[in-house]
């Protein structure tokens, strides 16, 4: 066997110690890099697996019909509260964020635009608990809104507006200048150009930004604890509006945080079910957005 090999090609000179060392270093290096990637992806798979497995084991129709203990053994109040807070936050944040994005992209190439961009980045980097504490002393305390949905929604809105603004700006900047010039040449005014030409051609980017912001608002906990409070009761459709505006409200992430600390299995199951719902929603939005963005980018 070895004889045939040696006749096929000329004998290779023995490797020097240095060459051997370089080859071995490279081998060890690649194995270490592969291990590192496994250690990054492994925990994600484990998180998804643990939460999905325990979440589905705890799944039952009562989750959607009954409220958190001691009121019931479900999550309905929390699901409802998360929907209310997120939608209210989006209603506040989307006009501001998209408006700011339009300004930054269309008229923001000056010092003022640069300042707004910088402040927006600072706000993005601000820890969410700092925003929550601000709302606690300002909205809940000084303005007397109390622990209730409005304070929570405004806090979340402050948190997501900078994301919306920057993503909208990026999306609008992708629209070719020629389209703006063509519209202006036809005699269109600024609002017409923005709303009939630029925004429609950047819809997918703007919607992407809004969906990502929605995912963030559903997954947040820290800014809500001292603004929205928590309630074990579902919203009462017969109650007057001011009760809704001044009563504490439940949300899913609070259930995850507090119920896993309880000693009983029922609470743990509810915490996992809540985590499963939140994670499913956040991951589906993010995967969906990424796949769509990649496909449209590929087509271009």
């Amino acid at each position, binding site marked *: 066997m070895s004889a045939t090999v040696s006749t096929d090609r000329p004998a290779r000179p023995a490797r020097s110690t240095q060459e051997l060392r370089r080859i071995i270093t490279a081998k060890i290096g690649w194995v270490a890099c592969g291990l590192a990637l496994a*250690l*990054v992806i492994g925990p994600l798979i484990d998180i998804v697996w643990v939460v999905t497995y325990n979440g589905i084991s705890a799944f039952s129709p009562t989750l959607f019909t009954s409220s958190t203990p001691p009121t019931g053994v479900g999550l309905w109040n929390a699901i409802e509260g998360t929907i209310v807070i997120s939608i209210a936050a989006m209603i506040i944040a989307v006009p501001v964020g998209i408006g700011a994005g339009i300004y930054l992209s269309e008229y923001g190439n000056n010092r003022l635009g640069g300042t707004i961009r910088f402040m927006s980045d600072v706000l993005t980097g601000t*820890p969410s608990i700092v925003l929550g504490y601000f709302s606690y002393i300002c909205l809940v305390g000084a303005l007397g809104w109390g622990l209730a949905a409005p304070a929570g929604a405004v806090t979340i809105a402050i948190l997501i507006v900078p994301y919306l603004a920057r993503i909208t700006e990026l999306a609008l900047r992708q629209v070719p200048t020629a389209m703006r010039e063509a519209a202006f040449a036809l005699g269109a005014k600024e609002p017409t150009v923005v709303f009939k030409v630029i925004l429609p051609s950047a819809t997918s980017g703007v919607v992407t930004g809004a969906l990502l912001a929605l995912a963030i608002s559903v997954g947040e906990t820290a800014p809500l604890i001292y603004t929205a409070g928590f309630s074990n009761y579902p919203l009462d459709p017969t109650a007057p509006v001011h009760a809704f505006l001044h009563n504490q409200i439940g949300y899913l992430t609070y259930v995850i945080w507090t119920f896993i600390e309880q000693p009983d299995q029922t609470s743990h199951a509810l915490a996992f079910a809540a985590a499963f719902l939140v994670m499913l929603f956040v991951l589906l939005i993010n995967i969906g957005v990424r796949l769509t963005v990649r496909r449209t980018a590929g087509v271009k």
Partner: protein
Amino acid sequence: MTIRPFRLTLLTLSLLIPAALCAVVLFLLIFSWQAIGFSGLSFVTHEFFNMGQIDSDPVTIRGLSVPMGADYGIFVFIAGTLLSSAIAICIAVPLSVGAAIFLSEIVPARIRPALSMLVELVAVVPSVVFGLWGVAVLVPFIGNILGPAISHALGFVSIFAGGDSGGGYGLLAAAVVLALMITPIIATTLLDALLQVPKENRESAFALGATHFEVVSKAMMPMVRSTLIGGIVLALGRALGETMAVLMVSGGGSNAMPTSIFSPIATIASFIVSQLDSAESDPTNMAVRALAEMALVLFIITLATNAGAKLLSSGVLQNVRNRKH
């Protein structure tokens, strides 16, 4: 100059962002002003946070009504914040550098998008879900397997001792969860930079007879070093302000300096969440003001870190260095 109502409306909307930021800083500053005046510099130098006897009658010190014995020091939380983030960075940097190199060099281009998406998805998992996973999986693992193993092997060094006694909650658990959360930030930043290294640089290194690994480690990594450092500092900014995951796995050991990597800790962010309830029962309101001052300190720390990241990635320092040569 003509007034353009459309532009003016958009400008007003976008000015709401700086307005919100200024409101946050101003309100925290005004609200915590009395606490700043009361504590002075001892706020950051005194080790422990003591709300005083909030049940008995308040006393007047320096013209301010405060609970008897109140002494607000946050040194221990600054230490907890910096230590947990520093350990998290030490764990996350090698992992994300390795992962990014593997993704850019070994993984075939066809499946690279799928794998890099998985890495990016780690960043979007809500922090409370990380906390849940930490409580359910990581804490028992550290308490039963990793902690005893580390203490058995390295227990003669005091910072590694005590891993067999605790339940797993503590500095190490917090650091590992933080490391997982910030890894994608560093890894994706580095991956983008590595994929942008010019083909010529790679090919020249290969032509000199370098092994593939040497091409990466000696020709490509030095080119992306400033991007990597920028990404690391950005990740540090995220880790410093992280609240829920740390709160859930850190053991909530307020008012004790960590003595080993298994000690329970509290960070500035987690302490604010865990103590606001009891601070509210202070009739003089000084404890709530002191917590607002803590929030302000946390804001300043993260602002400085993020500004540093921006400075590093914008290449300002790079230009300075080049000019020196």
